[in-house]
């Protein structure tokens, strides 16, 4: 996979990971991000992925990925054995996002976490006007089949981080296109205008 094929939002996440760092990705899927970071930023990467097909694809790409469950398997890692724990669009799909977040912060010095922002205006309008749960290209599931069982807005996530005492040292708000918010008004109200948000967390 070539670097310019990386999904735009993953590219922005990748920018926040330091070169040659030790990285654990939670829910690494087919390993696109981990592969990119390994080859372009020379990181020492590990991954956890729940699906056999995802893990097999990763292993076939030479990545050190184990088949496991973020809710269960993070506890086996020692404290701060990674520089970065990263996850993209995963934390809202775990059973206990708060526990997973705490485990990510325990095993690493900092975390880079990308979430879908349920506070995005489209979702608000969709729910407000249609009276139905939003379905879009990003949130492409019906309510009864979605793996995203713990939706939050960017603000909700920030509040959880504050509650747990984590500092958000950097936030990147993305439009639906995967590009960062540019419009100055939109940037004042990212919780309304960002479709996705990426946060860098430190203790």
């Amino acid at each position, binding site marked *: 996979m070539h670097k310019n094929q990386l999904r735009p939002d993953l590219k922005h996440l990748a920018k926040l990971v330091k070169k040659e760092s030790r990285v654990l990705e939670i829910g690494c899927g087919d390993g696109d991000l981990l592969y990119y970071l390994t080859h372009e930023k020379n990181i020492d990467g590990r991954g956890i992925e729940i699906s056999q097909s995802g893990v097999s694809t990763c292993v076939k790409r030479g990545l050190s*990925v184990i088949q496991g469950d973020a809710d269960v398997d993070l506890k086996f890692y*020692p404290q701060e054995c990674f520089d970065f724990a990263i996850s993209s669009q995963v934390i809202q799909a775990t059973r206990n996002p708060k526990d997973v977040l705490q485990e990510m912060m325990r095993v690493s010095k900092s975390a880079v976490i990308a979430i879908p922002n349920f506070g995005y205006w489209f979702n608000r309008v969709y729910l407000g006007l249609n009276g139905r749960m939003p379905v879009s290209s990003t949130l492409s599931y019906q309510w009864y089949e979605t793996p995203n069982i713990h939706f939050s807005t960017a603000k909700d996530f920030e509040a959880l981080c504050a509650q747990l005492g984590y500092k958000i040292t950097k936030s990147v708000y993305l439009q639906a296109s995967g590009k960062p918010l540019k419009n100055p008004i939109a940037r004042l109200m990212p919780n309304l205008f960002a479709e996705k948000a990426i946060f860098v967390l430190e203790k």
Partner: protein
Amino acid sequence: MANKEKAIFGPEFKEAEVGDIVFLAKDKPLMLDCGKEISNFPVAYQVHGKLNKDKSNAILVCHGLTGDQYIASEHPVTGKPGWWENIVGSGKILDTDEYFVICANVLGGCMGTYGPKSINPDTGKPIGLDFPVITIGDMVKSQKLLVEHFGIQKLVSVIGGSMGGMLALEWAVSFPDMVYSSVIIAAAARHTAQNIAFHEIGRQTIMADNNWCEGKYLEKKKYPSKGLAVARMTAHVTYLSESGLQRKFDRGLQDRDDITYGFDADFQIESYLRYQGFSFVQRFDPNSYLYITRAMDYFDLVEAHEGMLANAFRDNKTKFCVMSFSSDWLFPTSEARHIVHALSASAAKVSFVEVETDKGHDAFLLDEPEFTSTLDGFMKGVYEDWERENA
């Protein structure tokens, strides 16, 4: 049939063709875990491919309980193709055009390596039960002598399934600096009570056969064929899965239209197991079966590391690939996860896949596409990294 059996493993004992043999521990004896020492003992092995000038292209494959060194060439006793011919060979996953693949008969084995069938030079008789009780660790130490005999300082990979996986694990724990990568397939860090139970049944079955003669069957010109065959039949069931057996045999009848109201092999599964037992007797030594199953029973890396398997992997730089099969109830996925969790706790480099299959424990010996393609992918990653680091 009887002649061939006798010629190789029966009372008129004769050494079978075993390929290359080297005598190891000539200068310094090998201290075994039981406290006894062995020296100048034979190890039989097969190699495929060419060892390069730097001796930096060697891969060691470790065989399972009843396997042997005939990994990619015709077996001299059974005439069957090598047990991993789909994996080892020119252009295959373990590519013998590029790599030097070694497979040695384990210590305690019966295909040329030092074992209970070996002749004691002082008495001219087979050693039998005077052979020391060996461990997985002893097998690995003897393999290390073989690797050193070739002048190899570091193996690109040590790979094994089942007991071979235990050996691969033990290699990476005991000699991490000699093991660049380790592939542990359908194995465990310790034998469970159930594992020991099945082995005990196998051993008792052999020893209950009057022809076993307290292990002196070769001297007495007898042979516990029935005991060994039943041991194999029991073990063979543990290598398969319920759904696999059902798929393959169901309640199918063997060469008959109806049941016979007798104890003949009415069902295909009976006939199949009888054949498995019968053919095993022709290629395996009963005492070797006792010794090697015992070595597996004694294997416990957890106990050996103060009850914390993670301690075994501290600062380990080896790249690990752990694989299990969903329908393997002999070495279930939970055992593989135990290893993976311990490796994770040491922040070691580890890949882990549970392959979905109904082929049970033996899946690693069969053509299981998800397994072979995962192994292929892992090895390609290893080759790339190895070559870059050695460039």
